[in-house]
């Protein structure tokens, strides 16, 4: 691992840049997809169209999206903003369906009971639906986290620095150690963020902890695709 020994400061720098691209994108994805998913669940007809549009969006290959975004938004191609927007688009496309399913998993009777007690729609969302939807939602967020960290590497093909730059540079110079470092770093970063999400989820939903062991073999929730 000569390359790593000589170049670890640069590798760390790129890893940090990668984090700065991924985390804002994941945050934006969550902030946009959760309300959209809620709406899609509440109003099934436009909701269905929205979900279809989301899966179509996911079908757009990433390189052209990176070119289209600066055109539409008027920002420079090589800026991190372009990458964050592109990652957010894919994040939202991935998360919206999970979010809709998550809100769908909330028992309608609970919602009715809360309304009967006198919860306002706002309180209903924040204090009843969102907490109950969190487990399924979190599964979706974890998928988005891993997907976003992996996808951010594509930026290197258009001049946006990230851990992906280790791939293109290692490729050019024939240094396999550099490419391997990039892969390991990306996977490590993805798994670390994924773990953080899992821990957060467990902290946010204490009521599922005892229930989990009961339902271990029977849970037929959405496939984490």
């Amino acid at each position: 691992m000569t390359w790593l020994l000589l170049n670890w400061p640069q590798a760390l720098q790129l890893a940090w840049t990668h984090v700065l691209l991924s985390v804002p994108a994941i945050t934006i994805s969550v902030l946009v997809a959760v309300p959209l998913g809620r709406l899609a669940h509440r109003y099934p007809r436009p909701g269905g169209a929205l979900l279809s549009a989301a899966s179509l969006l996911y079908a757009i290959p990433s390189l052209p999206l990176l070119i289209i975004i600066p055109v539409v938004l008027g920002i420079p191609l090589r800026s991190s903003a372009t990458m964050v927007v592109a990652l957010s688009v894919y994040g939202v496309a991935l998360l919206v369906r999970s979010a809709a399913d998550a809100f769908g998993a909330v028992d309608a009777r609970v919602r009715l009971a809360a309304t009967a007690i006198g919860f306002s729609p706002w309180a209903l969302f924040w204090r009843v639906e969102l907490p109950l939807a969190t487990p399924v939602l979190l599964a979706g967020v974890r998928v988005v986290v891993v997907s976003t960290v992996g996808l951010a590497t594509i930026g290197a093909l258009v001049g946006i620095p990230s851990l992906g730059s280790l791939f293109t540079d290692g490729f050019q110079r024939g240094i396999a150690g550099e490419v391997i470092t990039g892969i390991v770093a990306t996977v490590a970063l993805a798994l670390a963020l994924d773990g953080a999400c899992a821990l957060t989820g467990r902290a946010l939903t204490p009521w599922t902890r005892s229930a989990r062991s009961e339902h271990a073999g029977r849970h037929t929730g959405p496939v984490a695709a």
Partner: protein
Amino acid sequence: MNLFADALTWLGDPSHWSGRTGIAQRAAQHLGVTAGALAIAATLALPTGILVGHTRRGRSLVVAISGAARAVPTLGLLTLAALALGIGLQAPVLALVVLAVPSLLAGAYAGVESVDPVTVDAARAVGMSEFQIITRVELPLAAPVVVGGLRAATLQVVATATLAAYVSDTGLGRYLFTGLRSRDYPQMLAGALLVAALALLLEAVLARLQQLATRATTSTPRHGAPARLAASLEGHA
């Protein structure tokens, strides 16, 4: 409407459709690479997933491997494989197989797992062998979820197969790279539209397939088919 219109003009040009570097040829290559990668991934993932779902053992291991594989950046794997294997299709197919396995695996084990254990027990009680249970009870009932996994995997592979063009002269990704590097953005956007169209087509086909599979297993809401199957099996005893 400049960029979009230019892309459509590019697509409309008949000379771009024929020949060795024509759209028809490249689309066929793209489909070929996708199909090949999915086939290999399926041979690896489906039996494993079905086994894990059936025996309900090894689930956490499989989930962990699946999660880690999902985290591997395809571009990285592709360049690494290419450094070892040279130009051509070997490296991209390898990377795409790794990409497709997690979704297929998840679809397989989640689908088989979700079959009502009562039904499986009933089948076992009737005297079906394990193999018969898997093929005649679990797989048909798991089909919707398995096809769902296939759908997710296909979508990812079709969109990512564009990277095959990074190390070989194959697929619709060539328009993306050539367009990107020569700043011929209409060509690049045209390539993107073609890939998206291909993805949509496959999505539609697989969605229909999933619909058919769901209908075959649920004629009444929720546990219709398994209930009927269990009932018919109980009738034997």
